[in-house]
């Protein structure tokens, strides 16, 4: 505190007190450290919040070299779906995949699918991104990987399906008013070809079999198409293996190890 603020003598206003109480700091000093409110532990707080809001508990920190990408519910595309739908937002997943490709810490990606399909464009965009990753990728279908979930499942380098999980293969439909039937038909056919081409290029299934499944009658009550359950998806060549999360993580770790070994061999040859 400067002298002019305090007054010069005892008789000047404001009268200085007879004794200066010792606060430990000068309240008028702008450079004095500001007393800090005790800060809650951020990690602990978010853990408590998660427990309260979602009934889930945070796991202790431990950096994993694999990233788990969950695709659930409807894959939301250019149209925001009404709130009763659980959705996966493509505008968040796509930059995430960019970050995964770029990240040094993450060596492999596990794609966990339990989806009922959704927007064709968004689904194909995610599929292309997963297929284009240079890092090992393993997909696992749990519960369901229907419609546009099929290309996402086959996009990974290796795919698993749980024994009870199902995949519906059926034709693409258009909702709403149709103007110009021949053109619309052509357009739909083209959209369908995109999906068929992607699936046949990224799995062992051939085009004729896939199309036959797509247009099979008598399996679905309100639609044409096929439902593949567990082993059936493997037998037709769509999925690589029946397995659960343990198999998927094990396979991913093995792919990562193989990749690292190959890199090491290349380096030692040079």
């Amino acid at each position: 505190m400067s002298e002019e603020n305090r007054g010069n003598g005892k008789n000047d206003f404001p009268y200085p007190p007879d004794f200066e109480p010792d606060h430990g700091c000068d309240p008028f000093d702008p450079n004095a450290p500001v007393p800090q409110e005790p800060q809650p532990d951020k990690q602990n707080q978010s853990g408590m919040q998660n427990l309260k809001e979602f009934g889930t508990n945070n796991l202790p920190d431990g950096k994993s070299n694999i990233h788990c990408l969950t695709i659930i519910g409807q894959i939301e595309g250019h149209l925001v779906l009404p709130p009763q739908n659980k959705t996966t937002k493509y505008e968040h997943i796509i930059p995430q995949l960019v970050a995964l490709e770029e990240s040094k810490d993450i060596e492999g990606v596990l794609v966990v699918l339990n989806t009922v399909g959704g927007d064709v464009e968004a689904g194909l965009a995610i599929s292309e991104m997963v297929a284009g990753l240079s890092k090992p990728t393993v997909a696992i279908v749990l519960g369901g990987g229907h419609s546009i979930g099929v290309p996402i499942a086959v996009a990974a380098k290796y795919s698993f399906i749980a024994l009870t999980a199902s995949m519906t293969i059926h034709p693409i439909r258009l909702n709403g008013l149709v103007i110009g039937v021949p053109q619309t038909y052509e357009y739909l056919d083209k959209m369908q070809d995109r999906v068929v081409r992607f699936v046949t290029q990224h799995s062992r299934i051939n085009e004729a079999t896939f199309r036959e499944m797509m247009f099979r009658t008598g399996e679905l009550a309100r639609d044409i198409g096929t439902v593949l359950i567990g082993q059936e998806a493997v037998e037709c060549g769509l999925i690589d293996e029946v397995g659960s999360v343990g198999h998927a993580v094990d396979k991913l770790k093995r792919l990562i190890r193989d990749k690292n070994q190959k890199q090491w061999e290349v380096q030692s040859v040079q």
Partner: protein
Amino acid sequence: MIIYTPLYLELVLEGLEDMKEPKTRQVELDGVPLVIEDTGPGQGRVVKLISTNPRDYLRADLYPGTEIKFTQQWSKP
């Protein structure tokens, strides 16, 4: 816009007409530009990230749907 799903479309699109456009605004949190929807005074929900840094999209605390609390900061327009 084609929705490719085995669910009945009337189920998926139910309530589409009654959907109100949420009142969103852009804020910056920890240097990450976000679009948020106000849910009450001093709190909001993350709608989406509009950052160009891909790392931001891996942050669990900024995932769309996360509730955030903030103190209003007034600044000159």
